[in-house]
């Protein structure tokens, strides 16, 4: 109270100062000093009160938010919470990379032994197997991603296999600041070939990848190398990409060389048709230069031998996907149709039984295959899907090694039917039934009836809704 009076007096004194000629300089200085002191004192008290008010608001908002979170509390009108823009960044947690963990497990029942699985008429390579019978842990996948700085983005996905091996599925950096739709990726990454190759296993619509991907890309082709991508400045989506890499994975092989072992180019176009339909189509080309790419085979005499291929492997492919959802709202119903055609030519030298006979001669092959699948979400959370795979062993020329190796003329096929229940976008339980005619035994197709029951769950960072 006394302070207020002093302030009033001081203010009055200042207001009349120009007119009170009697007041000398010393008096004026004293009054100025008092006013300054008062101002400082009030300012500090106001800022203190502001801080206390802010604190009270925060705790009130937090308790209200807790109530709102626990249940819909009747009668309590919500009160605006203090902006939490800084909440995530206040603690160090905000700078940690996004972490995601995929958990999956499978029960499988096959009418034929998976140990002797092979795709007849096709040189085996990569991960080509229907997996173990019975209960098994699927691949668990641990992913990290974040912006590195203002120029780069980084991502790594580690797959933990059921037998406790850890492998880097992908580990790459990508530019984020290049102009004109340009992007450069370096490290290990799934190649941009086709539509399915870039997709991680937990986003597939079936337990396994189509036969064409298994036969020609060893299920999924990953590169250690660099990728350039350019997105055209057009209203229609048009993306062009090129890759060069080590090419150590099938259809390439591990080779010590300075140059690149595999090169790929691809182009994707896509867009919308009305509000309910969208599509994407692509063309891909992969060229690999394997050297001493070994594989096991049974020769004409029934002996198990290891052969080796060196030369060039060239793959061309065309793919498309079309998606439909009424009014573009996929929550209730949606449909997806996708397919791809691939054709591979290999030419070079084949060493028959490299451990013993080691007979080397020319080898050429021209083989192809395709798949078509449809997935229908008929009500929220429920999907049904059908896929048909076909491969054509085409023309294979062993030259003089034809005396040692059987030339198989066969068309492996596979029909898969799947149902899944995805109660949220983070969980899925799937049943898949398949009739797999990959094997030909004694000149006739040997069908394998397969049943899979699988769960796939993701926790941590929100998964990307990639197209």
């Amino acid at each position, binding site marked *: 109270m006394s302070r207020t009076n002093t302030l009033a007096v001081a203010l009055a004194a200042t207001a009349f100062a120009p007119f009170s000629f009697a007041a000398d300089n010393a008096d004026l200085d004293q009054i100025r000093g008092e006013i300054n002191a008062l101002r400082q004192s009030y300012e500090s008290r106001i800022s203190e009160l502001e801080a206390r008010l802010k604190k009270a608001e925060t705790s009130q908002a937090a308790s209200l938010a807790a109530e709102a*979170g626990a249940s819909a509390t009747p009668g309590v009108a*919500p009160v*605006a919470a203090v902006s939490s*823009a800084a909440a*995530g960044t206040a603690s160090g947690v905000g700078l940690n990379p996004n972490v995601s963990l995929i958990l999956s497990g499978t029960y499988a029942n096959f009418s034929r032994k998976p140990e002797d699985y092979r795709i007849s008429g096709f040189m085996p390579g990569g991960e080509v197997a229907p997996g173990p019978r019975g209960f098994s842990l699927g691949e668990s996948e641990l992913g990290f991603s974040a912006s590195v700085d203002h120029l780069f983005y980084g991502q790594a996905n580690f797959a933990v296999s059921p037998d406790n091996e850890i492998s880097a599925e992908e580990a790459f950096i990508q530019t984020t600041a290049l102009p004109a739709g340009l992007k450069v990726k370096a490290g290990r990454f799934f190649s941009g070939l086709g539509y399915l190759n870039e997709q991680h296993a937990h986003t597939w619509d079936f337990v396994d990848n189509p036969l064409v991907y298994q036969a020609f890309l060893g299920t999924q082709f990953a590169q250690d190398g660099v990728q350039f991508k350019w997105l055209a400045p057009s*209203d229609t989506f048009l993306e062009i990409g090129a890759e060069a890499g080590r090419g150590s994975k099938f259809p390439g092989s591990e080779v010590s060389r300075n140059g690149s072992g595999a090169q790929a180019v691809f182009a994707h176009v896509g867009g919308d048709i009305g509000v309910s339909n969208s599509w994407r189509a692509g063309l891909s080309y992969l060229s690999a230069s394997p050297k001493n790419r070994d594989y096991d085979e049974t020769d004409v005499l029934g002996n198990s031998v290891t052969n080796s291929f060196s030369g060039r492997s060239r793959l061309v492919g065309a793919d498309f996907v079309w998606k439909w959802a009424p009014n573009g709202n996929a929550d209730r119903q949606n449909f997806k149709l996708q397919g791809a055609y691939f054709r591979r030519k290999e030419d070079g030298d084949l060493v028959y039984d490299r451990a013993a006979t080691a007979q080397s001669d020319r080898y050429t092959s021209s083989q192809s295959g395709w798949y078509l699948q449809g997935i229908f979400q008929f009500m929220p959370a429920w999907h049904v899907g059908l896929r048909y795979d076909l491969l054509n062993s085409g023309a294979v020329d062993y030259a003089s090694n034809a005396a040692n190796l059987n030339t198989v003329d066969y068309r492996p096929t596979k029909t898969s039917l799947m149902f899944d229940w995805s109660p*949220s*976008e983070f969980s899925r339980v799937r049943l898949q039934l398949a009739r797999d005619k990959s094997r030909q035994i004694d000149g006739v197709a040997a069908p394998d009836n397969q049943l899979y029951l699988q769960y796939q769950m993701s926790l941590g960072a929100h*998964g990307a809704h990639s197209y």
Partner: protein
Amino acid sequence: MKNAFLLILLVQGLVAPMTSQAAIRAMACEPEWTALLQELAADKVSTYTATTALQDPHHIQARPSLIAAVRNADLLVCTGAELEVGWLPVMLRQSGNPNVQPGKPGYFGAADLVSKLEVPTRLDRADGDVHASGNPHIQTDPRNIALVADALSKRLVQLDSVNAAFYQARYADFAARWRMAMQRWEKDAAPVRGMPVIVQHKAYPYLENWLGLVELATLEPKPGVEPTSSHLSEVLALQQRQPAKLIIRSAYNDSRGADWLAERAKVPAVVLPFTVGGSDRAKDLFGLFDDTVAQLLKGVKGGAAP
């Protein structure tokens, strides 16, 4: 001199619309921001809208057409607050457009400008699709629109300073009309203050906060989880103990849960437009709230008003 300046402004104002040469290419993640850009910039901005009112903005895929639109955009106007967490980061990464990345002038996050409601105190997916920074459906409160409009107008000036006077004039005009409209809506909606409601999705805390509605229950057992029959039965039981006057869903929601409950509870179920384009009347931002208020008043007329 002054006259010459005015003449230039006038000529600019006349010529620009005729050439229809938009100064800024924008992409709006949701239709309400397209409508706001239209108010603030007219044809100085051409806007591609990523979603419609009939689509659930949480569940959008990064379609090729959207990636191409981000690639070509000078300005991205999105809600933020993790509403687009599933698709916006993918699009930003695939677009190869450095100008619209978060932190750049070309990226505008509307939810950053308003105080968020329902900020969770614990983060657990067992609680459904919760957003760490709070409920992202901020556009259902016109006071939030006013805050966003102010900041967005300044952003337009920053990006296209040549047309600064134009944007400032448009904003002043919009802000005045918006203030008047808000007074009208608040007056018209006075009878709904304190009205108990049931909502399908937690899409309306900001609307409830603005008009004083009281949310008793949600049809979704957890945010983002489709209504289940067991949960609907629970809501019906609650309704008999503690009756709500109105069941509210958004245009993009499936109608079955709300219709089922409306029939048994003898309470009207209304469809709120939720965003621009969500109903015939919601042609622009003004229509959005005209219709929202009109729909809410059905709860007053239908039941015994307090």
